């Protein structure tokens, strides 16, 4: 991890547990982690290790039981639900394993969704959407509905939706988990470019070692604890 880049995500001593009936199941225990701006971080670990939970906490989708999470200098635990929703809209881009596109909206409209919440005019929104769909090479698929697109294309639409607001961080939960090898490779190459060329901070949860190798930094979680840190420069990983 580069020490010259500012810290964008600063996690201190967070714990998280879930309650199932009377049983309390600890998921994350005393996790501390920092992520620098423009870093491409992969979180790996077996099922149930807590990696998706950690991703959700960083993205403001869930709340920790204790500890602090600062993203871009904002203590997100201190935000109300409404403030947190506004913060997510402005600062976080989401990429999911199953794309999570709205089936009744076209690719264009799906990408436009996050921009509806901004002050941009309709014309500005359209320009942004066209630009970002161009970035993922889907200019010719703008009017297609998700069902008319392949898995790889749908994931690229999801990536475009994640980027269209120019967020502070991009979180990706198993982004290649539902794709064939070629489509997965396309997505990973693109995410790598995002980090390297566009300076996006990406936090990716993955099972796939091939996907993890695209990341600049890999962290392993095991039973809710950060087991070790494998850090390397991107060229060495590729």
């Amino acid at each position: 991890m580069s020490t010259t880049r500012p810290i964008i995500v600063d996690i201190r001593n967070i714990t998280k547990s879930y309650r199932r009936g009377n049983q309390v199941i600890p998921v994350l225990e005393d996790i501390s982690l920092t992520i620098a701006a423009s870093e491409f971080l992969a979180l790996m670990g077996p099922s149930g290790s807590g990696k998706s939970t950690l991703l959700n906490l960083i993205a403001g989708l869930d709340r920790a039981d204790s500890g602090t999470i600062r993203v871009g200098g904002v203590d997100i635990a201190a935000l109300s639900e409404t403030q947190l929703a506004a913060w997510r809209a402005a600062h976080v881009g989401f990429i999911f394993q199953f794309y999570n596109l709205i089936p009744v909206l076209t690719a264009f409209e799906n990408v436009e969704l996050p921009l509806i919440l901004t002050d941009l005019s309709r014309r500005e929104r359209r320009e942004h959407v066209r630009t970002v769909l161009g970035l993922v090479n889907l200019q010719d698929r703008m009017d297609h509905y998700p069902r008319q697109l392949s898995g790889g294309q749908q994931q690229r639409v999801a990536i475009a939706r994640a980027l269209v607001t120019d967020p502070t961080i991009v979180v990706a939960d198993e982004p290649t988990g539902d794709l064939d090898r070629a489509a997965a490779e396309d997505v990973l190459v693109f995410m790598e470019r995002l980090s390297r060329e566009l300076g996006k901070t990406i936090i990716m949860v993955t099972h796939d070692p091939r996907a993890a190798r695209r990341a600049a930094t890999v962290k392993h979680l095991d039973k809710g604890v950060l087991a070790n840190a494998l850090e390397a420069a991107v060229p060495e990983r590729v």
Partner: protein
Amino acid sequence: MLWKLLFRNAFRHTLRAVLTVFGVAVAVLAFGMLSTLVDAWYAGVSAAAANRLVIRHAISLTFSLPIAYMEKIRAVDGVKAVSHMTWFGGIYIDRKNFFANFAVDPKSFLDLYPEFVLPEDQRSAFLKDRRGCVAGRGLAERFGWKVGDTVPLQGTIYSGDWPMVVRGIYQGRDKSTDENQLFFHWDYLNERLKERYLRRANRTGLFVIEITHADDAPAVAGAVDAVFKNSLAETLTETERAFQLGFVTMSEAILMAIRMVSLVIIGIIMAVVANTMIMSVRERMHEFAIFKTLGYRAFHLTSLILGESLVVCVAGGALGIACTFPALKILTGYVGNIFPIMDISPTTLWLDVLAVVTVALVAAAFPIQKVLTVRIVDALGRMA
């Protein structure tokens, strides 16, 4: 774009949406028709004039009053004009052709009821012909009567054949004026009664008076009744509205039942739409979680669900209201002789709209609460 989303979501399952819209339409149609039926029951009350009082026998409407009362009534302070009318109960060819027919004092009656509009030539022809009658436009259209036609009424209360010539066809001045009645000369009735049933002659069913000031109605009514107190035929004087209301009150239980059925229909459709909305939102809970993930707040999510509910309900409501007009026209063809005024009132239309909006709100309430309280990670399903 969110507008587009509302419509696309509302009709995502076309068959389900169409059936729900149809259900709402049928409910609104039924509600509108039943409300109009209740209004029709009250049509006489609505048409009543504030400055007219009705004088009847104090014991019952079935008892008649001596015609000699007319001059005594005219002499009471506050009485501007007097007329009288007698329920004849005649049948035209067949009992199913029921319509109201009265023996009246023609001149005073037409003066007292300016809402029955008659061309001047027809009015004078009617006044001149003792065997003449005037029929409402609705009645004339129903039986194809024209001025000059002879209408053979068969008496029920006053037996025998009573042929009379149509001398005029009146039109209602107001929408609430009943155009399905027939009026003929009381003299025609009375002369035959004198010949056959002398004891029944020189009597009338009721008197109608016009008073100078509507506010004086209680005082004038009291004064009229005081004149005939302790006589053989004591009177009961009341406003025309109260008189008409008396008929409606007799069928209050039926009206209450109709109103209850209207509300039950709305309740049922509320449950149907609520069920549709709950199913629809539950199937798409993860989509709402995506919206929440992207930063959409309670206001946006509420608008999306409520909007979707409104789209379905308003579509059904509009269809239901549009169908109410032709449906009432068809219904009038069957029951027009009993309920001549079957026009959907603005109040009923507003109640239709209120019912539609209420159904939409109630149907959306539970799904909204569910969407707003669900945790994103739970709804997205595969997290953790």
